[in-house]
């Protein structure tokens, strides 16, 4: 529930503080990028809220790193 407060707060803060200057100076590229990041992050928070086992970037990282990590640590013991 509180994450929703955070999402609404973040959107509100961005629209209040950052968007008007960008609109005034017609920086469309930056505006698109800001909206893109916000949408990605909101999507990420939705997956966290609604999925029972949300995807975990660290698990993906762990799959790649663990052979190398194990090798490195075995060097040291």
């Amino acid at each position, binding site marked *: 529930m509180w994450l929703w407060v955070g999402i609404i707060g973040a959107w509100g803060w961005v629209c209040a503080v950052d968007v008007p200057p960008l609109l005034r100076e017609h920086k469309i590229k930056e505006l698109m990028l800001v909206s893109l*990041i*916000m949408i990605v992050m909101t999507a990420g*928070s939705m*997956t966290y809220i609604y999925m029972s086992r949300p995807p975990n970037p*660290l698990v993906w990282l*762990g799959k790649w*790193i663990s052979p190398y990590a194990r090798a490195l*640590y075995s060097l040291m013991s």
Partner: protein
Amino acid sequence: MVNKDMLSVRTFSILVIFFTIGTSILITPAGLALEANQDGWLAALLGVGLNGLMVLIYILLGKRHNDKTLVEMCHAAFGKWAGNVLGICFVLFFYLLAALMVGDLGYFLTTQNLPETPIEVLQILFVIIIVFAVRAGLVVYSRAAQIFFPILICFFGLLILPILPKININNFEPMLEYGFMPIVKAGFSFSGLQEMVVLLMLYPYVKKPASSNGGFMGGVLVGGIVLIVTSMGCIGVMGASVTSNQLFPAYVLAKNISIGHFLERIEGLMIFIWIMSIVMKIVITLDASVIGLGQLLKLKDTKPFIIPLGFGIVVLALLCYPNTIFIQDFLSKNWAPFASIFTLFLPMLLLVVLLLQKKKVDENPISASTEKQKV
């Protein structure tokens, strides 16, 4: 990227000290005691030494390319496309690092201090402050670091001095009981938690003379001493087995403070130390990733991106850290090697490539100058 508000070397070393202390002061004694038992403090010494070596690499990188951030150095070394790829890797690393630290702090508060508050609220509150600080700019948060520094020293003294009488020397014996290898292993894990490479993004903003040479190394040493003292305190007061069992040994150490038998259990005040150091570390890391993003995408003004990225940090922290078991597992098994790619191997690669490039330019001065004439 030279502007008139540049940090002095002294300010930079204060930032380095805060960065070194960061989250490490809270979690490292556990890892050290787990691997090296009562020799955890020797492992801390070794870890600080390893950090010093890494910092030497950064200083060498900085000697020649003072006015470039890390991402620009990648561009300079590898050209546009490969440099961009490398830069993206670094920026993503910084971003992940910031998210993990916010997650660390959230778990710390939720488990130890405010158990009935939902973790996302604590993290959001934290990120609001950090976003605010990064938006205010480098000058503002470096000034704030100068104000925080004496407070940090005071509180740290308040933490360490009362527990000195409680240290039991027997907890440190026998030394080197399991040989040298566990110390090496523990020291390596320890050094993976400092991630000094982030500070390379701030190079252009530090004044030129001895651009962060003495400052960088001095900061690492002072921060390292703080960490070593904390580890020694933990092992000395609580013993290696108890220390290795804790999630946050320094907090448990603070619970042992008893001044005159009436001022006790003031660990709630001690969390100020960790909040301060973690705030500064995350502020610098977020600023580094925002600067890096700006340089990769050739943006002139990166201020509008800070709030979305800050919000993303909370989301990433919630996704990455589902529970404490996972955190402990990941940190002890995978983090140090992962971090060492970015903190040790890639900078070494950068250094080698940049050195070779410079040699090439030095060896062919005539052809270089004739090329210039053609253009």
